């Protein structure tokens, strides 16, 4: 069975349908990129997958023994208070909490896991730095490390590079790619960054309140809609 499958999912905000009849599967090891214009329902779909919002109809099924609390999530930056007093280690460590159930305190194992995540993302040196004093790109890596602490299987990422400069952005996508390739973590991501999409995505879901396209990247780039969306970039 697929890692995650959406069946006829519809979601709405007080009678305004944001998504209608969405069906797709995500398999283990996929790098799925969700694309579409502003307001096409990308973030809404992620909220559905994460259980932050319940669908009005349809269902989301988890396979491969994936439990809802084993999903790592990297939210859009603006949802976090940037002046929060916390050390990076505190932030990363908090990612391990979801798996601990009723156990209230962190143990050695959790701390080791947090350090390991920071190591994978090359931010061990930031361990004792204050989160609010980091640059946007560094903060984003800390949040990715936190997400990594919450999962070994599936990472859901919403527009991770908004506000980052092109160089930092492309490094950030490289890191996510590394997590996908090296550690076999499945990625579901929304992005407006066509460069990264063409480089790394294996699957594309094109939304416009319903599914315009779902399939592999190679199929997508040969369809009419894919050509239009990828536009100038793919011909450069």
């Amino acid at each position, binding site marked *: 069975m697929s890692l995650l499958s959406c069946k006829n999912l519809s979601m709405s905000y007080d009678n305004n349908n944001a998504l209608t009849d969405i069906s797709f599967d995500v398999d283990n090891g996929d790098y799925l990129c969700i694309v579409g214009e502003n307001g096409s329902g990308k973030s809404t779909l992620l909220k559905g997958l994460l259980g932050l919002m319940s669908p009005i109809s349809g269902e989301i099924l988890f396979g491969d023994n994936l*439990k*809802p609390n084993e999903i790592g999530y990297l939210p859009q930056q603006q949802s*976090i208070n940037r002046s929060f*007093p916390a050390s990076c280690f505190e932030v990363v460590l908090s990612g391990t909490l979801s798996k601990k159930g009723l156990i209230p305190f962190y143990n050695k194992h959790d701390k080791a896991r947090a350090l390991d995540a920071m190591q994978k993302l090359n931010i061990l040196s930031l361990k004792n730095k*204050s989160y609010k004093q980091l640059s946007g790109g560094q903060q984003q890596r800390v949040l990715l490390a936190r997400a990594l602490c919450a999962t070994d299987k599936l990472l859901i990422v919403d527009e991770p590079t908004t506000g980052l400069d092109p160089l930092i952005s492309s490094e950030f996508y490289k890191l996510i790619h590394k997590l996908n390739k090296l550690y076999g973590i499945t990625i579901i991501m929304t992005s407006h960054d066509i460069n990264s999409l063409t480089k790394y995505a294996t699957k594309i879901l094109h939304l416009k309140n319903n599914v315009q396209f779902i399939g592999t990247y190679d199929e997508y780039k040969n369809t009419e809609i894919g050509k239009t969306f990828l536009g100038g970039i793919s011909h450069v």
Partner: protein
Amino acid sequence: MFSMSALLGLLSQKFILRAMLVGVLVSLCASLLGVSLVLKRYSMIGDGLSHVGFASLAISMALGWAPLLVSIPVVVISAFFLLRINNQSNDSAIKGDSAIALISSSALALGIMITSLTKGMNSDVISYMFGSILTLSQSDVIVSIVLSLIVLVLFIVFYNKIFTVTFDENFAKATGTNVSLLNSLLAILTSITIVIGMRIMGTLLISSLIIFPSLSSMRIFKKFKHVVISSSIISVFCFLLGLILSCLIEIPTGASIVVTNLTVFIICHIIGKTIK
């Protein structure tokens, strides 16, 4: 000006020692919860709740009921209500901050009306407004101590979850933390702390016990754990100093504690600026 013997005389009085114990515990609770409330931008909820607490106190006094037993449930219910309004404020007709202002001034007005209609209570109004340690009875003290110990233990047990929810509610929710349960817990703990602390600090000033210490420590410390620990130290220190001052120069307890907190805040602000 303040002689040592006056201080010792003060400390030998039982009611002051009792008030001190309650006050220290309440200050601890308030400062611990305060860090989370301030960071979640819920500071004004404390203010609103204390006014609701005042109204329910006035009602229970007028009817001759046990004040704490009436106030705590009333304030807990209002806390749920205020949190809900606050969370929905983006799309509801009345914005969260105006809703809190409405509720808090209405409750205050109601409380004052009832107090002035009730015979023989007018003299107490000042002490309710600005705090007095004289209003604590023996049973109040016991209830207060038990409740604040419960608040402290729950805070420590849920410390890591509270951090996660305060830092990033969406992440916590997405990774399976029961966010609404934790928010309810915060609301209940805050309500209890406010009702207990209100007697000493006064209705108008109790919210400062929640806000000041965490703001002061956030000037200096950048790590959550350090902020939490230092704000509880600052809170207890300011409480004790303020209480002693208020007894020595005979000013309302709450006012004296707030001024002490303000002074510490200014000092922390300056330290924070210089070490930056």
